[in-house]
């Protein structure tokens, strides 16, 4: 288990909600790509990805772009 560094934000995907709209990958291509069925693939693998400070704005846009609210941004402290 990785221990996140203090103050680092993380993006979480609920795969049971995701319906492959793909808007998240448009908003945050640095961290999210799409598989051949257009479901998101985090650069880190898995269902959680650490978001560097400089990409927080894009990550927020990815969260709000999702029509089914499958993404969540959390702040670890």
């Amino acid at each position, binding site marked *: 288990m990785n221990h996140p560094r203090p103050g680092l934000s993380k993006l979480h995907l609920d*795969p049971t909600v995701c319906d492959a709209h793909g808007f998240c990958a448009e908003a945050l291509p640095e961290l999210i790509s799409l598989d051949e069925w257009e*479901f998101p693939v985090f650069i880190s693998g898995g269902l959680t990805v650490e978001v560097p400070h400089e990409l927080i704005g894009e990550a927020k846009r990815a969260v709000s772009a999702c029509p089914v609210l499958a993404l969540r941004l959390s702040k670890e402290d």
Partner: protein
Amino acid sequence: MTSITPRLLPPDPVTGRALDLRSLSAHEAHFGPAPGVAVATKGRPGSLIDEISASGLRGRGGGWFPTARKMHAVVESAAARKALSSGRKTVVIANAMEGEPASSKDATLLSHSPHLVIEGIQAAAATIGASNAYLAVHRGSPLIPILDEVLAQRSGIDRIPVELITPPARYVASEESALTHWAGDGEATPVYGARPFQRGMNGRPTLVQNAETLAHIALIARNGGAWFASAGVPDAPGTTLVSVGGAVAQHGVVEVATGSPVTDILNRCGGATGAIQGFLTGGYGGAWVSTTALQTTTWAPDPVREAGGVIGAGILWALGSQHCPLEEIARVAMWMAGESAGQCGPCRFGLPTVADDLATLAGRQGSTQDLHRLNERLALIVNRGGCKHPDGTARFISTGIHTFHAEVAHHVNGHCSASSNHFALPIPAGRAVPVKRAGKDFR
């Protein structure tokens, strides 16, 4: 020769077969009456928790998680405390769904020593202060009339009634969060991120334990933790049930001390019926292992993992050399795709696609590029589902491709070594669920 001590399935001294202990009097004549078990009070588990902790018992449903630690969490984790302080009571669910088609240990246990399981449920329920207890077997199970009769014999004896629940037989319905979901809301789908031991059935801290684990608890309540740990290996002690199948003389369930040589287990089943080209460990969510690697190891979580396998719920299945491993794997992969709840992309689209890729390879129509693409797809399926169904199926497939790599290469070159046209791996009758296909018709 390792000495074998059947505990859960004591043999008839004359026939050597497991005794039928369905009647309460026969059960108590063999095991003695169940001792009283202290009930949890004021946010503290009952005293049996210390014996379970000392026993080193680990869950036999597949995860081998330390049982005492899970029970502590149901009563004492921060989230559980919060739920309990708002007046919610804990719940016990005994999992005897036995979703793995090659497993028969829970059915064997419940049809021979059912009272041991019920007593284990009672002991666990008292220890965590549960006010409800359930025993889950799959819908249509032949165990249902047996257990109705067993539970009727116990009315007035048990501290709380045990309710028999019968979720659908689908593979993924036996997953811990799916079972909890079913008990609460009648939906047998896995819940992403769920922690039933903190917030389970209807928000109540819920202890889900495999039937065999609970039967061991019933004996720990009688004999103590040190007795339990006197058999087996120190880091996963006790005896354990193994469902043995495939190319062995007698299919069935044997009880062995953990750490027993795999060859001893096979010998107890009459030995191999011919050349074995590989072993499936842990079932359709498990892993294939080469014959040499498995036959030189012992049956406990660590050594089996070091051999490349997974002990899981105790499945040991031998593939005879007359069968085509690719056809076997392709067929099971397609079945597993249909057994998903269809909630996440990796299951809905990934599994049917890799099953098709396998069918192409098995049919000697696949190229090296097809094999490469299959491996890439398998890597992308893992760790992206809401439960471990896609991961387990991907492991079943990828370890199979690895173990049978020579036969895979043979197929790519247009050949197949199999001499049998019968399938060997079991698929439950009447459960050939049509696979939901990628595309608009499914969306």
